């Protein structure tokens, strides 16, 4: 922004798939050369072709290759890269990697390593947030002195969630609606904790019904200057992973939005945050919100923020990493319209979102000014279990939320992706559900509407249409239907 020379001459992208393509896209625009790293199994991948050069990295598994910090740093040096962009996942939030990059005389396009350490530690980051006036969910741990525990727990307020400190999986977990049940439930939880986990320590926190996942995009230059790019809502999740995100959040009071964004800025300023980052919060229906965690990297769902602010987050990351700081001011960051992101995954929603494999046989994504189809696919690309099941992100913007929902639904319906089972139909059903449009979302949305979101029954007419179109692709059918000698035509039916 406003610079005549590129922030770097050449960078290495320590990632793959759609995010590598995304970073390359900005680099090309800025005149920054790119080095990709790929595992042998992906030598023909789209990101490898888009990069100026690509180097093969090796490992026991493709993922292991991307987690091999030494190998990636050595590749960066050999290929003359000045900086490393980690993308998301893999080494992006690994402080030792960030330190090693710096020790090798390269620039890590990310935060200071100590920031990664602080924010990566659940307990320390919570304490840090609390100390800096960012609300954290009140909780109490104990159980040895059951009366003391009960007294402290009651002061948090009801409903309360009580669970075994050591546990998971619902064992020893209960929701306590009021004071009258607290002591009994705490005793039960303690004995269950002892029985199942061999540790009687129990934990109570405020139970939030219908929680929303709201996160704030921030940018910091490392000097204490921090800007926010407003919030995203990522409440629609399956298997604890986001599948639909949007910016800004729907049905959110503007004063509350300001408060949440201010809290995110306060936290980021306190840590002298450098890089693009995301502060995640849980928002309760009563308007109270609590710090969840901070992600110190570019987020999967960053494009929705880009579409409503008009900013290029990767370009800003590069400027900050190159020491150019932030030339923007908060007043220059404005929201226009509404954007939605749908994560297109290779999976079977009808079978508990089980991952699917296959080969991309045909791809014809929707196109348009307000549509981004972020992907790393080509026809012939194998969809394997080596990596995450996300195939692409369909990002759509429009003037307001209802229009964005309609546009996203249309774009999903226009997405032709053949060769592997996907959640495309399922995503369209979510967008078509009245509750998605009209009510505040919450993280239990998918579970709450499970029945309504199920594949609807087909009419015989509809089924017949699909079956006939499908039959035309099968050789067995074509032989019988078109190659059959004349007598068969008069006899009808099939003969072996």
């Amino acid at each position, binding site marked *: 922004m406003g610079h005549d020379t590129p922030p770097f001459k050449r960078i290495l992208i320590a990632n793959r798939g759609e995010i590598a393509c995304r970073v390359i896209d900005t680099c090309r625009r800025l005149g920054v050369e790119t080095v990709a790293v790929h595992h042998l199994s992906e030598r023909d991948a789209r990101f490898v072709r888009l990069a100026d050069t690509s180097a093969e990295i090796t490992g026991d598994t493709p993922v292991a290759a991307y987690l091999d910090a030494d190998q990636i740093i050595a590749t960066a040096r050999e290929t003359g890269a000045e900086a490393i962009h980690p993308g998301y996942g893999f080494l992006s939030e690994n402080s030792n990697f960030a330190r090693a990059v710096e020790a090798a005389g390269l620039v890590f396009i990310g935060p200071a390593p100590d920031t990664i350490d602080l924010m990566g530690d659940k307990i320390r980051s919570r304490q840090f947030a609390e100390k800096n006036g960012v609300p954290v969910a009140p909780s109490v741990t104990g159980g040895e002195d059951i009366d003391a525990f009960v007294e402290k727990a009651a002061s948090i307020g009801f409903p309360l969630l009580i669970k075994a400190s050591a546990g998971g999986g619902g064992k020893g977990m209960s929701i306590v609606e009021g004071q009258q049940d607290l002591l009994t439930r705490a005793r039960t939880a303690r004995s269950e904790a002892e029985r199942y986990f061999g540790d009687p320590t129990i934990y109570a926190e405020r139970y939030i019904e219908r929680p929303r996942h709201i996160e704030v995009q921030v940018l910091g230059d490392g000097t204490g200057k921090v800007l926010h790019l407003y919030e995203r809502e990522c409440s629609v999740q399956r*298997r604890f992973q986001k599948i639909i995100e949007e910016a800004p959040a729907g049905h959110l009071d503007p004063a509350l939005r300001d408060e949440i964004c201010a809290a995110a800025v306060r936290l980021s300023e306190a840590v002298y945050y450098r890089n693009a980052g995301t502060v995640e919060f849980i928002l309760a229906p009563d308007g109270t919100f609590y710090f969840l965690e901070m992600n110190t990297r570019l987020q999967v769902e960053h494009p929705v923020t880009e579409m409503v602010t008009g900013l290029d987050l990767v370009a800003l990351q590069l400027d900050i990493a190159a020491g150019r700081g932030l030339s923007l001011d908060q007043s220059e960051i404005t929201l226009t319209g509404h954007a939605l992101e749908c994560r297109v995954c290779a999976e*079977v929603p*009808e*079978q*508990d*979102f*089980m*991952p*699917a*494999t*296959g*080969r991309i*046989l*045909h791809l*014809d994504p929707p196109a348009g000014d307000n549509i981004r189809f972020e992907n790393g696919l080509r026809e012939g690309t194998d969809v394997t*279990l080596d*990596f*995450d*099941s996300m195939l692409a992100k369909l990002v759509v913007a429009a003037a307001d939320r209802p229009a964005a929902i309609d546009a996203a639904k249309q774009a999903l*319906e*226009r997405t*032709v*992706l*053949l*060769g592997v*089972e*996907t959640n*495309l*139909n399922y995503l*369209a059903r979510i967008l078509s559900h009245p509750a998605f449009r009209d009510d505040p979302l919450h993280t239990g949305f998918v579970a709450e509407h499970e029945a309504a979101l199920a*594949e609807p029954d*087909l009419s*015989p*007419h*509809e*089924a*017949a*249409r*699909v*079956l*006939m*179109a*499908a*039959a*035309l*692709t*099968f050789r*067995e*059918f074509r032989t*019988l*239907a078109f190659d*059959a000698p004349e007598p*068969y*035509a008069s006899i*009808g*039916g*099939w*003969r*072996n």
Partner: protein
Amino acid sequence: MKLKLRLNGTPHEMDIAALKPDLELRIDGRSHALRETGGIGALRRARIDGEDIAYHQARSGNRAFLHLGGRNWIVEFVDPRDAAREKVQGSGDIRAPMPGVVVSVEKQPGDPVTAGDTILTIESMKLQTNLTAERDGVLAEILKSEGDVFEKGAIVARLQEEEDSDA
């Protein structure tokens, strides 16, 4: 002989009633007319019951992938030989619903199992899934051990054949 197809897990039967002047098909007992009207590459056109439709298609093995009417479909061609085999063996086979790796084996051959019991836990793309017995019975064999990888549809364990008893 009828062609067997599966759509959204539901089996359908298709039969050719007439080849001329247009193809006449019987699907699940109803009569339909079909004519191919053209297409390039993955994009095809057909006239179905008097209605012109355009769709995208690709085929992989016994599966047809379609994009038709704004939705994606997968239609499976059921080989009559496979169908016959399935019928004989009943539901004693425990098949992998997706490719993956065995995380743990919970039962041993000879163990009695109740429908719903976990036989093996598998992992696929960081997600763990329990493979369970579809019916009560006795475990005959486990064909995969911890750490083994397998493809979708692979038989990972087998129950003993059900005894026909009148009890």
